[in-house]
């Protein structure tokens, strides 16, 4: 696995960490703490899996932001999916959604009680299921950021061309750049560097962040998700902080181009339009969501079945919103490891395989 292992070399890591230490003390001399936020599930997991936080000096803080689409999905979305399952609609979903608590129970609970729910690795599996079971109504739980959105939209595209009438998508698509905007505007959020997502950026292109970086003057690096990529990304941000720069740097140029994936972007444009969206724990972020255009209403499960995916009543004790904005660290949540564990999660950050609380519980307690 040359293009995997080469990015995990110990000697190279040690060398980069040495440079990071030099830069960190330069930054410290200026009286600054480096507070770097990543907004990408693969970054959260890589940092946890490789123990990267332990390798960094004390004044360099890596904070996990809202990089996990499962984590920011409203309780009402789960409630809607449960409602559909209760009506006999077959629900197909990415695995992570199954254990997310809605207002009262999870999809896994419903499955144990006999509801027709199954896990897909790819949206294409749901299409296959719908073709094989013309007698069933199938709904795919379409959550995701820009990396996943085009793959889910393929369901609508193919169902259309095959005149497949028994499948639709319950959408909760979210966009990363408006979330970055909201974080930068939030006075409670103290971040002076962003590690920008690897594969969302592959789709939207580096140009998607240019306005943001110019307006807010926060150093930002697009980094791959392998551990060496992340370490180099941190090094670049520290260098910028030490030199008072706030630029956008694309360090994942082996995958991310300036304009991103043209086909994916035009597909998104053809089938979806921008709308306001509610981020669990954060609230409504204007223009941060995508919904199916009117002409595709028959594939929009919310319209087809008349269910609402906004709101819901998550557990009042839950601090996921503060964790997602980096206001508290997962370890600082009073429920961490006590009332809230992966086995009995109170909020979605603990459920998703990319959730910052799940990563903390698994890797750093």
């Amino acid at each position, binding site marked *: *696995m040359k293009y995997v292992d080469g990015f995990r070399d110990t000697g190279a890591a040690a060398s980069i960490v040495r440079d990071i230490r030099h830069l960190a003390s330069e930054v410290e001399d200026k009286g600054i703490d480096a507070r770097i936020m990543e907004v990408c599930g693969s970054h959260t997991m890589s940092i946890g899996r490789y123990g990267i936080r332990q390798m960094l000096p004390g004044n360099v803080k890596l904070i996990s932001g809202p990089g996990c689409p499962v984590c920011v999905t409203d309780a009402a979305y789960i409630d809607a999916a449960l409602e559909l399952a209760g009506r006999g609609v077959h629900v197909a979903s990415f695995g992570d959604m199954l254990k997310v608590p809605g207002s009262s129970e999870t999809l896994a609970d419903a*499955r*144990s*009680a006999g509801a027709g729910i199954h896990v897909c*690795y790819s949206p294409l599996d749901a299409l296959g299921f719908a073709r094989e079971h013309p007698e069933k109504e199938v709904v795919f739980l379409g959550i995701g950021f820009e990396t996943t959105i085009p793959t889910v939209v393929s369901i609508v595209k193919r169902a259309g061309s095959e005149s497949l009438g028994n499948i639709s998508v319950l959408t909760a698509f979210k966009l990363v750049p408006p979330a970055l905007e909201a974080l930068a505007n939030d006075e409670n959020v103290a971040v002076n560097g962003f590690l920008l997502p690897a594969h969302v950026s592959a789709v939207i292109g580096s140009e998607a962040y240019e306005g943001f970086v110019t307006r807010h003057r926060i150093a930002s690096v697009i980094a791959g998700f392998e551990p060496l990529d992340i*370490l180099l990304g941190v090094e670049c941000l520290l260098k910028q902080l030490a030199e008072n720069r706030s630029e956008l740097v694309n360090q994942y140029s082996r995958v991310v181009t300036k304009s991103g994936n043209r086909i994916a972007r035009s597909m998104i444009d053809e089938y979806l339009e921008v709308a306001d969206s509610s981020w669990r724990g954060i609230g409504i972020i204007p223009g941060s969501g995508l919904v199916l255009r009117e002409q595709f209403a028959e594939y929009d499960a919310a319209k087809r079945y008349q269910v609402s995916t906004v709101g819901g009543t998550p557990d009042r004790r839950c601090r996921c919103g503060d964790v997602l904005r980096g206001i508290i660290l997962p370890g600082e949540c009073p429920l961490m490891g006590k009332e809230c*564990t992966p*086995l009995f999660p109170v909020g979605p950050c603990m459920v998703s395989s990319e959730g910052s609380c799940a990563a903390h519980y*698994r890797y750093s307690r």
Partner: protein
Amino acid sequence: MKSAERIQLGHGGGGRLSRSLINSEIVTRFAQKGPLAGLPDGASLQIGNSEIVFSTDSFVVSPLEFPGGDIGKLAVHGTANDIAVSGATPLWISLALIIEEGLELALLRRILDSIRLASVETGVQIVTGDTKVVARGQCDRLFINTAGIGRKIKSLNTGIHRIQQGDKVLTSGTLGDHGMAIMAAREKLTLNEKLYSDTCSVHRLVAEASQWGEGVKFMRDPTRGGIASVLGEIVEDRSFGIVLNEDAVPYNPQARAVAEVLGIDMMHVACEGRMLLICSPDSAEGICSAWRTLPEGTGAAVIGEVTDDKGRLILETGIGGRRMVDIPQGELLPRIC
């Protein structure tokens, strides 16, 4: 804390959810004291002057036949291995079959032949059994239960209580091969070379290790939940911890590639023909060398060490970081064994 009121798939996963079910329903009723206390792999019992070990396991693997084995082979090895890692020589096995109406006779014959071959190779006799047939749809093709009895090996005295700081952690070979072979077969991934299950009997490995007598502190076979489960359970609430060296943990490169593609952590993946052994520092190299002379032990390696970091299982990662290894949560890979 909200509790699940129905049995979920995760309750059979070998991870935390399984343990919570066992703790709340089984331990409370049967294992507060006596041979079941502490939930050993096999029960140590005394008949007159003889010490025996008694163990049981059920097999619901899907698909029934997979590269490297089948449910029958697993059924023999699984129980024999539980007995072996309890420090005993497996001798006799019972065989109970629950067959779904409609199962092809040719398939049943292949599996029974496989059971016979596995029992000869393992040196055990099938001495009693039972066969039930249920109507179509009431079980998934074939379920097997085996129970077994073995004679305790006198030189071995193993148990969690014997583990001390400084002891070494050994594996008899590459980890996760069985689980990944099942996943690859299920996901219908094509591989240039097939991924084979590692299912085999570990009784010869135990016999070799027994030469080190008191140096051998603890043994277990990492089935459901993988080494993360086994080692995580050992250190939980104890006065010691374990640190693993990621670079020293042996994996089959193909299995790793499949895990990479499916996004699975190899430390959570089941083996069916491997054992973990904790021993005194001066026994480690000797046991590894002895293991490497056997085909089932060619990949033997020292992968870690017992520390005084109470209750924590830590991994030193390949790039020089450190992180915890947690016991897997629920149903990572259903019907793996």
